């Protein structure tokens, strides 16, 4: 029993990182209907920026986290501007291919310039284990959950209460009507990429600290799982991404716990298929109301 609880807890931690990543997928999809395949690589870049700020500039972990988020936000904005915006009127498949291109460019570019080997992520915070009865949790794990929750609350505030957040929702719901309100659609899309990329970077830095290593391909698998999480929760729906992220994290660790480690990815994709057959719009999605 206690080991199940322990696995649940571990799942929530992993899921927090998936959730941070899934939010970016879902927001970008919501606003320009693009599956941003390069999103997992922004998470990777975020981890490298964190590495750089801690290891090279010797900054405090939290300052490094915030800076990595800020720089990655800028990278996200540039990616959209260079690779997606010029294709805004093109068929969707063209943008999708462009996203794949950006993904390969970032992965191979990072390998070329910084090597494809894993590198040790600095232990910026010494690990301390806490015990609650049979349960064990580290300060790093608490930090991951805490940061994820704080960022999600912040995102909710921005999306629900600020003018920019309202503009994001308006552009997602009805782009032409948003234009008629005098909303600058390009600026709103840039803002969406900035926020999504910052969240992904936070996930990357946290996972670097947690697993102690980073590499140029570290974004591939989490990227796909976070995408699955976004679809599972209902693509385009922000709370759905958080829910989907946690669910996938928990499922993954539970599959491992019952001795199916080798099949954990298969289980995740199997679930995706089942969910899509049962409810194509995702758990929080409204049936049959995919916005066009």
């Amino acid at each position, binding site marked *: 029993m206690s080991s199940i609880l322990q696995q649940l807890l571990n799942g929530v931690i992993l899921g927090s990182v998936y959730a941070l990543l899934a939010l970016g997928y879902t927001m970008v999809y919501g606003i320009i209907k693009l599956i941003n395949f390069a999103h997992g690589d922004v998470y990777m870049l975020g981890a490298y920026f964190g590495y750089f700020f801690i290891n090279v500039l010797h900054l405090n972990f939290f300052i490094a986290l915030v800076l990595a988020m800020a720089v990655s936000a800028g990278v996200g904005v540039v990616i959209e501007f260079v690779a997606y915006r010029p294709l805004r009127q093109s068929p969707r498949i063209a943008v999708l291919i462009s996203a794949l291109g950006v993904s390969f460019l970032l992965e191979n570019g990072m390998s070329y310039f910084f090597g494809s080997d894993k590198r040790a992520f600095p232990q910026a915070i010494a690990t301390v284990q806490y015990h609650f009865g049979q349960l064990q949790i580290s300060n790093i794990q608490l930090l991951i959950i805490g940061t994820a929750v704080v960022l999600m609350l912040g995102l909710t505030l921005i999306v629900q209460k600020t*003018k920019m957040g*309202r*503009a994001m*929702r*308006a552009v997602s*719901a*009805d782009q*032409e*009507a*948003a*234009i*008629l*309100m*005098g*909303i*600058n659609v390009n600026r709103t899309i840039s803002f969406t990429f900035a926020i999504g990329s910052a969240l992904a970077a936070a996930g990357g830095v946290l996972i670097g600290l947690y697993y102690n290593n980073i590499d140029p391909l570290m974004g591939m698998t989490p990227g796909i799982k976070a995408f699955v999480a976004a679809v599972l929760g209902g693509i385009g729906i922000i709370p759905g991404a958080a829910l989907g992220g946690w669910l996938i994290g928990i499922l993954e660790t539970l599959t491992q716990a019952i001795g199916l480690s080798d099949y954990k990815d298969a289980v995740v994709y199997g679930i995706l298929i089942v969910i899509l057959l049962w409810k194509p719009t995702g758990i929080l999605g409204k049936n049959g109301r995919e916005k066009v």
Partner: protein
Amino acid sequence: MVERILQVTDLSVHYGAIKAVQQVNFVVNRGEIVTLIGANGAGKSTILRGISGLEKPVAGQMMFNNQDLNGLSSESRVQQGIVQVPEGRHVFPGMSVLENLRLGAYTMHDKQQFSKTLAHVFDLFPILAERKTQDAATLSGGEQQMLAIGRALMAQPKMILLDEPSMGLAPLFIQKIFDIIQQIRESGVTVLVIEQNAHQALTIADRGYVLESGQIIATGTGAELLASSQVRAAYLGG
């Protein structure tokens, strides 16, 4: 003294090979209600979309308040005081009535002005005040139309462009919408309105233009067009 607020000269708008609007000329004077009437596909919506910047004309000039609109973004046009209520209302689903109205005021930065305008809109449409927190998607068609108009007024336009505001509404609601249009004009906003309901539109309009296949084929005061046999035959059911 009549003062031009909008002057459209030789406006042409194409969709690829489709010449939706061809060399159209018309003017709107400050404080007027002007209506564009014409059959389905005549190009009425396209003209409004050209004015609000949703479509880029292939030729022609649009002067608003003596300023050339060509090259101005839709955003700047809203700031200049041109606000369009789109055909089919297009309220933002999943957002409350109040949020929709806030979005209407997106280009306005003064909190006091916002409260004042909101009070004015609630005056005009008391139902919107009652339904402030309701999801806009769950409003009835007539309520959505009121929200769409209220939302446009939140930007404090100098000129409002209405694209078939009475479309799909019951007779009682249609009358209400036409009353509101007159109230909007009385509050100092110039109105350019497209209508299928040619009879009612011409009744409240100072002047009208008749559009056919992307070209203006007749113009006159509302009363003149109402009396014209050509217009009666084509648009007023004889």
